[in-house]
């Protein structure tokens, strides 16, 4: 005869196992999760002896299970909220609390580490958010923090930048006129925005050298930024700059099929009115657009563009040792970049702020 508590445990187990089914019958939708979910497999009698067919069903059931959101949230509560860790070994927690996929950061982290280690401290620029933040597609983290988190994180980051002598907060270039310094339908700075950022950077590195007379502002494209989405070269919207200052541009590494690391190397003769030595600049499309505006102020400026994926090792043997490293970080960039945890890693390994070069 069954002991009462045995019956209880049987009911308990079966009750728990039936929770997702019960939720489905009650038409409770699965939690909205980040990332793409597996498509429902189509019925195919010809694949009934194909184990891959069953795996696709497993993936679909897992993704569509009503319990998945609760499971993710439980792990998140324990690992992240309680211990401050990522809830998956595939995820790294950035310096500001954002979560990032390690598969995205390991290679660039190693690259930056190799370049930055022998250098002085980096200057870090935090750019203004220009899109709603959201989690990376493949993170096992729930999408629950929304705009509040974005605003909170941005505020936190700006405070840090203000307090950190290594930091350069370019938000200030947009505080007064954010709307006029972005494309209307593109999350990038327009010509005016780039000039404002360029001025901040040059003043930070080489006070007094910024020459507004070298800038010839142009009108915005009629496309109002849609040209980026349409794949049209938007250089026509870039403010003209005085390029007649002995700058040479060398394309060291081509991107492959639009992906990979793109390096531009800008050199000019040593002079009193340039930032001496070699400056590395890591960034993506935002900072890349500023390079034409600032390159003339540097003896040697090497821009390393972090494009979307397929990051490969840098050609170190072709690159000179850095005198300083300048890293772009976007606080809005959780959806599209991996810079922040990279920075967290880099910052942890670099000399203290007092060593700033």
């Amino acid at each position: 005869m069954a002991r009462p508590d045995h019956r209880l445990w049987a009911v308990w187990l079966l009750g728990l196992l039936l929770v997702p089914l019960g939720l489905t019958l009650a038409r409770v939708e699965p939690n909205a999760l980040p990332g793409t979910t597996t498509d429902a497999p189509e019925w195919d009698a010809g694949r009934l002896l194909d184990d891959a067919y069953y795996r696709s069903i497993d993936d679909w059931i897992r993704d569509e299970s009503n319990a998945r959101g609760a499971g993710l949230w439980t792990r998140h509560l324990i690992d992240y909220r309680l211990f401050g860790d990522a809830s998956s070994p595939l995820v790294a927690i950035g310096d500001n609390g954002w979560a990032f996929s390690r598969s995205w950061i390991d290679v660039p982290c190693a690259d930056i580490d190799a370049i930055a280690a022998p250098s002085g401290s980096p200057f870090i620029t935090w750019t203004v958010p220009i899109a709603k933040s959201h989690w990376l597609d493949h993170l096992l983290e729930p999408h629950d923090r929304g705009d509040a988190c974005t605003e909170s994180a941005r505020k936190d980051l700006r405070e840090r930048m203000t307090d950190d002598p290594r930091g350069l907060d370019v938000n200030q270039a947009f505080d007064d006129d954010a709307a006029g310094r972005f494309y209307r339908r593109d999350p990038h700075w327009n010509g005016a925005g780039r000039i404002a950022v360029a001025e901040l950077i040059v003043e930070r590195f080489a006070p007094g050298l910024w020459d507004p007379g070298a800038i010839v502002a142009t009108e915005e494209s009629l496309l109002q930024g849609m040209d980026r989405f349409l794949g049209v070269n938007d250089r026509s919207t870039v403010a003209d700059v005085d390029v007649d200052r002995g700058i040479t541009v060398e394309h060291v590494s081509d991107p492959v099929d639009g992906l990979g690391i793109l390096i531009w190397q800008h050199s000019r003769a040593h002079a009193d009115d340039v930032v001496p030595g070699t400056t590395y600049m890591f960034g993506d499309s935002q900072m890349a657009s500023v390079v034409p505006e600032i390159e003339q102020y540097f003896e040697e400026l090497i821009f390393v563009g972090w494009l979307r994926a397929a990051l490969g090792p840098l050609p170190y043997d072709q690159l000179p040792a850095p005198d300083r490293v300048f890293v772009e970080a976007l606080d809005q960039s959780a959806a599209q970049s991996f810079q922040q945890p990279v920075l967290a890693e880099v910052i942890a390994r670099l000399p203290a702020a007092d060593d700033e070069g």
Partner: protein
Amino acid sequence: MVFSSVTFLFFFLPAALAVYALAPRPLRNVVLLLISLVFYTWGSGAIVGVLFVSVIVDYVLGFVAAAGARLDDHRLRRLAITASVVVNLSLLAWFKYAGWLIENAADAGLYSGAAPDIVLPIGISFFTFQSMSYTIDVARGRCDHLVNPIDFALYVTLFPQLIAGPIVRYHEIEPEIRRRDLTTHHLGEGAVRFGHGLVKKLVIADTVGVVADAAFGADELTMGAAWVGALAYTMQIYFDFSGYSDMAIGLGKMFGFTIPENFARPYSAVSVTDFWRRWHITLSNWFRDYLYIPLGGGRGRPAAVYRNLMIVFLLTGLWHGANWTFVVWGIYHGGWLLLERRFGWRNVDNTGAQIARRATTLLIVVVGWVIFRADSLGAAADHLGAMVSFDDLGLGALARSTSTRAVLTLLGASLVVFLPRDAVTGPILVTDIERRGRIARTAILGVGLPFALLLAASGAFSPFLYFQF
């Protein structure tokens, strides 16, 4: 299909229980057989055919073996046993070892062709051994042969233990194959054991496994990281495999079967001999009954006994996989058993030296797991070298992949080595009606089980370690 997957937990198991409970008693074996075949096909696809071959061959040979036993015809019995062993070991040799043998032959310059691309049927080491044992037991007159092919197929393919054991011998569940009841008592007892196993697997094994994987996948290890990695794997493989066994026993009980215990607090062993009485008990018993004793066992000259021991453990190692690491791991354990027998260390007593003996045995076992887990002998040597390098006690890069939950889980799991030798949790949870059993049961099932299910719902595919064997 994996016990800890969303598909199994939330859909397959409830549906299987419901269908089984609603089936008329005469059809229950058919229903359970179909459930088991769906379970296996879900994970293996067309390779289910290999399972059918083993089932059909031993079903037919059961008649031959039974005739030999009934007529006391030595030749018939030998014919049945030989045919069963040849067919099953051939399946095993081809699917599990052919690729590895060809690779080694190519390395030695004896073969120049490409190695065949062979898919390993999940659980082949388990179901071939189980199928063979039936024919041997019938031939020995230890049990009757089965006339109904459905009953025999169910014995071999019974899904709770089909792909990772415990290895069930026919005489152990013969009465239940023929008749069993579906009761709330069985359901409750099974639920307790299944829940216990699920907690072991999802809450402990998978968590500490992250640490072990990071350590064994690292290019360089500090001494501290090497030890932490070895300890993490020691805990992972125990909680993973014993968790699977608990789940199999629990599932078996839910459907009315009593599947034998497979673990008895192995990390409290006071000798390597004692360890093998507590670790993967059904495999040890299989080798003892079907190989060691027929070879002569512990009788005869010491040299013959040592030879028998080394053969058994060489094959035990090889049974786990086609890699030299498993071979060396088997020889390593066989060597310790040989030494223990030679110098009388295997005797278990209750003297004050027991703590030291437990610690020593555990150390031997941990070193063995490093050999077992490593991808190659070279990697094993590197890991063991790091464990005695005395260069850096820190965790180095391993710290990056070690979460606080993993550290706490590893520390908590490691307490298992300090528990009393007779504190075998699974049976205690089911049978002990005293306070400690109730408290443990409530904690594990009341808190641990929901947490484990949430982890299952949130996690990625995580097969049991013993599926690969």
